């Protein structure tokens, strides 16, 4: 178009304007447009179309009724559904919000209509997932219990890596307060085991403090042999019960 000359453009604009006004005159004043003899054959009527959905908001799994009406159309289709009767209704159960686009084609032209069905997530279920796991879960996953030799409360060599890892995590999460429980296996006496469990908890606390964890975040408590993790009488079980156990403090 831009390559056309100014004259040609002006002529074309005038012609377009005349044609448009003629169409508008015809459309707006149908009844008045009768008189001119000889009447030209009426142009084919333009198709009409409407579409609606009820209800217009559902939750996933629910259904809604899509209703549409057209006239003067020979070819009616809805996107995503396909060819449909000129007028009709249909149940739909979309899982996501959907815009239904109806196209009605006839000899008089093409008419579009749209309607939107909104699918909302159910209100109470599944609050939005937290951005990361909770601090307590992280504590439970990251901080490892420390195990002891029989009748000993010093931290043995194979537990040094665990306590350094614990200290690192606890230093990185300096807002967490926690309790160290000292536990003993069932073979010792009640009273001596309480003192031993107290000493085990203290040993773990001292190692953490030495590694830079603030002492005032740490509580210790001895359970002696009062709260065993494992009830059988064998070495595997006794070892389970000789430990410094970490508990997140809410």
């Amino acid at each position, binding site marked *: 178009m831009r390559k056309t000359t100014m004259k040609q453009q002006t002529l074309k604009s005038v012609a377009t304007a005349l044609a448009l006004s003629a169409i508008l005159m015809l459309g707006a004043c149908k009844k008045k447009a009768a008189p001119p003899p000889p009447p030209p054959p009426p142009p084919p009527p333009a198709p009409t179309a409407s579409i609606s959905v009820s209800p217009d908001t559902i939750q996933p799994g629910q259904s809604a009724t899509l209703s549409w009406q057209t006239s003067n159309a020979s070819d009616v289709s809805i996107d995503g559904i396909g060819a449909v009767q000129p007028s009709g209704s249909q149940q739909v159960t979309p899982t996501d919000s959907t815009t239904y686009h109806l196209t009605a084609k006839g000899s008089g032209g093409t008419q579009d209509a749209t309607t939107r069905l909104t699918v909302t997530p159910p209100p109470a279920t599944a609050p939005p997932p937290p951005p990361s796991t909770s601090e307590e879960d992280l504590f439970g996953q990251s901080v490892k219990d420390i195990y002891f030799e029989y009748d000993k409360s010093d931290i043995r060599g194979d537990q040094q890596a665990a306590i350094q890892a614990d200290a690192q995590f606890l230093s990185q999460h300096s807002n967490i307060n926690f309790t160290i429980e000292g536990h003993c296996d069932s073979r*010792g006496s009640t009273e001596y085991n309480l*003192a031993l469990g107290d000493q085990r908890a203290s040993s773990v606390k001292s190692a953490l403090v030495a590694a830079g964890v603030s002492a005032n975040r740490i509580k210790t408590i001895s359970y002696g042999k009062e709260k065993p993790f494992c009830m059988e009488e064998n070495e595997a079980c006794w070892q389970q019960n000789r430990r410094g156990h970490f508990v997140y403090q809410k």
Partner: protein
Amino acid sequence: MSFAVCFNFFKRMHLNRRPTPLSAALAVRLASACLLLLFSPLFASAQDWVRTGSGLGVEKVRLAVPDFKPANNDPQNTALLKTFNDTFWNDLDNSGVVELVSKSFYPLQVPGNPTEVTFGVWNSPPPSAAMLAFGNLAVAAGKVVVQGWLYDVKNTASPLVLGKQYTDLATDDSARIIAHKFADEIIFRLGGGIQGIAESKIFFVSDRSGHKEIWSMDYDGSNQRQLTHQGSISLSPRVSPDGTRIAFSSLTKSGWEILMYSTELNRIVSFPHFGGANFSPSWSPDGARLAFSSSRGGHSQIYICDASGANLHPLTAGKGLDVSPAWNRKTGAQMAFVGDSTRLPQIYTIEADGTNEQRMTDQGYAVDPNWSPNGQFLALAWKRNYGPGEPGSRDIYLMDIASKQWVQLTHAGGSHDSPSWSPDGRHIVFQSSRSGKEEIWEMLADGTKLHQLTFTGRNTQPNWSWK
């Protein structure tokens, strides 16, 4: 004191083939004062032990105890007589002071009052009794009246040793208490003037309410009652010498603290919280002071305070853990305790001013010392041969404090812990897993007359009242 537990320490004879000089000297020294005959293991192995001793030839008084008879026709008599007769027999049988003549030797007609006594059938075979305890019981107007006599049936001219009458409400409890009182009178006279224990109490820990709480029972296991309702974990009950207070250790919101229960008010009374972990209280014999272990200074050490909790000060100051103090019940001048400065826990003694610490046990794993009422002996729980595959488990031992000679009282069949002496020094109560779970058992201080006192739930840490 005419009564003393008698020891003869022929220990480890498979090694020595003769008693050590100290053992022989001790045996001679104690023999004259002996009423109970203690044995010692001839072999160290737990399965292979025999009874031996220096006083085996001394016979106990043969006492016949026919059932008391009804004195009227009240319908309540039968039930109360059953309670009375069972309790009375058990008290005398468990006393260790007399030898009860089996009822199968008794004549068909037994006396209910002095006019019915036929001396000849009692003082000659088959009963051959030296003493006869008999009497009657009657319920009238809501009261039970018991008359009882102790006769020296060999002294037909003047047989009466004791005659007593008791009146109380006609209840099962009363019948039991009267039986205890009369049994104690007899034991006092036949046992060298030492008060009997039939009216004493045992305090202990039971989990049968769902939590470990402090309970009490009569010395024979009857009348078991829950005292505390802390709902956490309560351990190590220790009754004061006058019986009015029980110190124990309990897990509180601020950690393990010593709590105080009043047996007069039936509730917890105030006692200071000290901080750290506080365990294993022990009363001085005058009831004025309390020893216990506390980690308030960093690790578990023995502390002493007044009965009110005032004047707290440390007694021990070693590197190891110290726990389970046990005051010398006669003098109050020393204490035994458990210390682990040489790794496995051992028994030590120390003066109450912190001087003269002495190691008592030479090996193994030794815990839970308890000082005898006469001041001479320690009862303790000991696994002498400690190590993987070593035979035996923790057993109850007695140790003569002056010589450190020891004797084993229980022989395997489970772990044995927390021994506590009876007020008369003739019995020891302890916990044992020999029945499959921890229960409270009692025996004479020579290891005989072993019997179970508790059967419901798990029951531990018995502590016998001081009188």
